[in-house]
């Protein structure tokens, strides 16, 4: 009986560790989709770019991913800002269909470009922490690298939340989300704020990508699986709620882990989608959301 408890606890903790990375991705999407209403199908592709940047810093300059991810996020902010300013801003007023299509196109561009530049080869990053183990008592073992990622993610998530809630920029952004026209009337530069917000959202997923690199592999298509997951997090957390998406990320991590434990790993991702559909049908506002769907 006790071992059942410890297995479950281990699974929950592992789920939280993985989930913390999901949270960063989800928070990025919450900014982009939840607040700006941009249905961004290039989210995973941005993450992939960040992973390549982090990898290059590691491979060519020996910078550990646990620092490199910051540089990658900065690069991604620039890419995100440029993408919005150069491409998305023209389509933003039009239907979601257009946004979906253009972001799909952008994703293809990034993936195709990565394929050409780096070829389809897999890359792996091993840091001294990759094999390190952390023991909590005699029953729980954690991977050192994962723990570090978790701590960093939580710190970043809190930072991001505070920034969006308390800073002037954050308030401007939320003003735009509430009423774009009114916001422009009170002097907010709507397009620029949105470009910065998009850049921030992409930077968030850039942070996640860099932190993910040691735990994972790198190849051009690596981001594809995270697109849908990020939408799930935003819906689960509630539209417009950054903290909701963060919590949703943790929830997804734990749910996947427990599903693996009790039902089988092959069903873990399916459960994500089933939850998504349930939330959409039963409580579309999500956990923390207040907006009508």
């Amino acid at each position: 009986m006790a071992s059942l408890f410890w297995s479950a606890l281990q699974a929950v903790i592992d789920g939280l560790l993985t989930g913390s990375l999901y949270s960063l991705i989800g928070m990025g999407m919450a900014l982009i989709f939840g607040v700006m209403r941009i249905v961004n199908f290039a989210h995973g592709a941005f993450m992939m770019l960040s992973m390549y940047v982090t990898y290059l810093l590691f491979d060519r300059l020996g910078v550990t991913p646990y620092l490199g991810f910051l540089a990658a996020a900065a690069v991604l902010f620039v890419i995100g800002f440029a993408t919005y300013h150069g491409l998305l801003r023209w389509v933003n007023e039009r239907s979601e269909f257009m946004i979906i299509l253009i972001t799909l196109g952008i994703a293809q561009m990034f993936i195709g470009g990565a394929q050409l530049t780096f070829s389809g080869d897999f890359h792996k990053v091993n840091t001294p922490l990759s094999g390190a183990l952390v023991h909590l008592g005699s029953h729980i073992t954690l991977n050192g690298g994962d723990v570090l990622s978790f701590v960093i993610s939580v710190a970043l998530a809190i930072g991001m939340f505070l920034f969006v809630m308390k800073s002037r920029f954050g308030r401007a952004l939320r003003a735009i989300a509430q009423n774009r026209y009114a916001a422009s009337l009170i002097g907010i530069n709507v397009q620029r704020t949105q470009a910065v917000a998009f850049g921030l959202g992409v930077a968030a997923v850039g942070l996640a990508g860099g932190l993910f690199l040691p735990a994972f592999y790198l190849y051009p298509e690596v981001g594809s699986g995270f697109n849908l997951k990020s939408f799930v997090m935003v819906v689960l957390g509630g539209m417009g709620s950054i903290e909701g998406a963060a919590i949703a990320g943790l929830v997804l991590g734990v749910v996947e882990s427990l599903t693996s434990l009790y039902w089988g790993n092959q069903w873990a991702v399916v459960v994500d989608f089933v939850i998504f559909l349930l939330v959409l049908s039963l409580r579309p506002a999500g956990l923390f959301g207040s907006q009508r769907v």
Partner: protein
Amino acid sequence: MTQRRAILAAVGFALCLLVPLVVQQDYQLNVLFRIALFSALGMAWNLVGGYAGQLSLGHAAFFGIGAYALPLFHDKLGVPIPLALVLVIVAAVAAAYVIGRVSFRLRGPYFALATIAFAEVLRLSVKNLEVTGGDVGLQVPALFGSISPTRWFYLAAVVLAAAALAATAWIVRSRFGYQLQAVREDEDTARACGIDPARTKLNALIISAAFTALGGALYASQYFFIVPDSVLAIDLSERPAISAMLGGAGTMTGPIVGAILIETALELFKNVFHEAFQLIFGVLLVLVVLFLPEGIVGTLASWWRRKRAS
């Protein structure tokens, strides 16, 4: 459809049927088969996406249901082929009902996301379950006799596309068609006029699903063998949507134009650009969204009307 256009369409149809007399190679017929099939799929999607204005990105679910229903009913349950095809439609209608009931309560992007989720759940479940062959896949019965030359599949696809076009033409002129477009333009006002948006959208989805599933069964049979990723992958949902949009969603022939362009472009690009093909495809897609939002047919039509007016 005016009489002139109906005659044109009939002539076009007849010409398409005569193509196998000229084109003999299987490879070429294969390309034409895909063009015809994706035209049909694009038009089917267009009913929901173009006319009803509901962006579905989960049509792969219906495609896959058609593809899997055929071997499951025929090989595992011993149902004869004609009946199996009927059951394919029944399965698609049932799925459309379920998916529609849940998804149509959602608006805008949520609807699209929900449809994606349904298709993914289906794909992963098929992959995990023994009864559908898992990822090892299923052999699919041959629809046109054991040899089943490609030209029969091509002809069947042309017939399916013609049927889809005819259905679209009929719907557009009917009251149902006006209800669809009313719902697309402004759902609340439509409801105020006494239209039941949920029911209208659901009916469109059901018709769309039936055509898509038949297309799936045809496709599956042509390749003789299916795995989940070949018939339920998300790019099978994206392709008809992109074709319709490229050609002009909400126009009758838009999806045909779009399908021809996409399939030929893909085929040409692959041979010419090799590894750069994905990048180029992405760039083109971005350019089309930026500069041709009404699709080719839509833009042409606007230009023609403006010219006429001046």
